[in-house]
């Protein structure tokens, strides 16, 4: 965005990495501590917003993000239904935990794509 102050640019540029680390932490520890795919994905989407606020880079690949979101949704549906069909008491604890972790990661990336597409649609396309 044009006309952003120098102070905001510097502080936000330094905060980048911390936001990414926090988002990944929330997603990765979704099954242990509060948080999960949706919250972590929203935090990761805010990285894109910070990126929009401090630079004038408008090269967002909408087609790629939308395609990625659709593919991830398909994967989530297939994976979870597969798990529900084969879930029984003989399944080990590690496998169940692994399922939760993978689902959290998939949902996180999907929500991140979705929210950033929504934001950039509103910002770059409306009112031009």
């Amino acid at each position, binding site marked *: *965005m044009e006309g952003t102050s120098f102070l905001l640019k510097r502080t936000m540029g330094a905060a980048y990495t911390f936001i990414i680390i926090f988002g990944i932490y929330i997603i990765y520890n979704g099954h242990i501590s*509060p*948080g999960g795919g949706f919250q972590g994905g929203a*935090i990761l989407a805010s990285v894109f*917003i910070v990126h929009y606020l401090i630079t004038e880079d408008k090269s967002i690949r909408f087609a790629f993000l939308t395609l990625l979101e659709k593919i991830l949704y398909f994967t989530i549906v297939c994976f979870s239904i597969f798990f529900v069909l084969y879930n029984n008491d003989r399944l080990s604890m590690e496998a169940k935990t692994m399922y939760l972790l993978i689902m959290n990661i998939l949902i996180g990336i999907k929500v991140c794509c979705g929210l950033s597409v929504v*934001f950039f649609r509103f910002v770059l396309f*409306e009112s031009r």
Partner: protein
Amino acid sequence: MLNIFLVMTIVFAIMAIQTGILRHAVIYAGIYSLLCSFIYLLYKAPDVAIAEAVIGCTLSTVLYLVAIRKYKVYKVYYCYSEDTTKKKHDIINKTRHTLTNFSLSIELELDFILSKNTAAQMITHSSYDLVIEQNQNQLTIFGDVTNYHFEEVKRWFTDSNLTVEYCPLFCEIGDDRG
């Protein structure tokens, strides 16, 4: 603790509705959802609190602010000299009051910027809708004549008892702001 937060949410909700300036309303709504997230935390629902803090307080506030910035802003530069006294502040406040009423009447968002540059610098170097220069007790208003709000501004300033001189400019045609 919980009761304090609950009362504060009501206060900020009423403030967000009652304020006339859109930007303040967005900020009050952001504070309101931050307090909501604290309340969720006090009710021992940290998952919901994280979601509320991220979505309600950050994403939607930034989205609204960008939308207001993109929408209709009436940008006014107010140029004044270094030696400001009490009386001059009165003039600034009166001008700001008049322009706020004006922008509310035409449903634009007022962006009132105080500057210490001279008016000539502002005219050549910035994008603006109105430049006001103050000399002692005399106000000089520079504005684009092709901008049809200029006549409206004149009418508002004749109602207030300020000594004003108008200086119409002929800027580039096709300025679609405001």
